[in-house]
């Protein structure tokens, strides 16, 4: 497999293509580690896998045009909506085994754009997985 420079990523939120307004994406999926250690001869700990917490953090450029970042994200946060999220490495190709797409239903528990004089406006948004399907990498395109 070749290495890659992230340039052509696709970021879709609630069916809106926000790729050109995003500049970083970071997926996190963590299983809670539950300590179920009992007394034993070696003193070793024993763990079971607990609940899974998943999120995707995206850094967006602040933009306020029709159907752009603010108009897409703020209503989702304000109205506590659950919406579709998708990210894949290459927007010029459909999802496949070599271009896996992270998909799931997400919520926005916090929303906090801001600005500094003279600086490009950017802010990070954390999308939290919102249902039992969680966020998962898919290797086939949506129908």
């Amino acid at each position, binding site marked *: 497999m070749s290495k890659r420079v992230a340039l052509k990523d696709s970021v879709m939120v609630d069916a809106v293509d926000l790729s050109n307004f995003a500049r970083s994406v970071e997926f996190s999926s963590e299983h809670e580690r539950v300590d179920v250690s009992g007394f034993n001869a070696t003193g070793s700990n024993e763990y079971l896998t607990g609940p899974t917490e998943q999120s995707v953090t995206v850094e967006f450029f602040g933009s306020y045009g029709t*159907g752009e970042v603010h108009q897409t994200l703020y*209503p*989702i946060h304000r109205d506590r909506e659950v*919406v579709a999220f998708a990210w894949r490495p290459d927007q010029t190709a459909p999802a496949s085994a070599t271009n896996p797409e992270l998909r799931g239903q997400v919520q926005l528990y916090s929303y906090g754009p801001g600005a500094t004089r003279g600086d490009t406006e950017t802010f990070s948004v954390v999308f939290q997985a919102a249902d039992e399907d969680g966020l998962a990498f898919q290797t086939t395109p949506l129908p």
Partner: protein
Amino acid sequence: MTLYKVTAATGFRGFKEGEEFEAELAPDEERRAKERGSIRVVKRDDKEGKKEGKE
């Protein structure tokens, strides 16, 4: 089915601005998309199959 037109440069469901598509969107998805200016309804079939005009 409802015929929609994409009205924002950020597209909708993979369709580009100016393109039309037929779909049955969930009411909440349609409401959000219309509010932010992503789409508009071109033609909607009512339950008896009649066509409604533009919204």
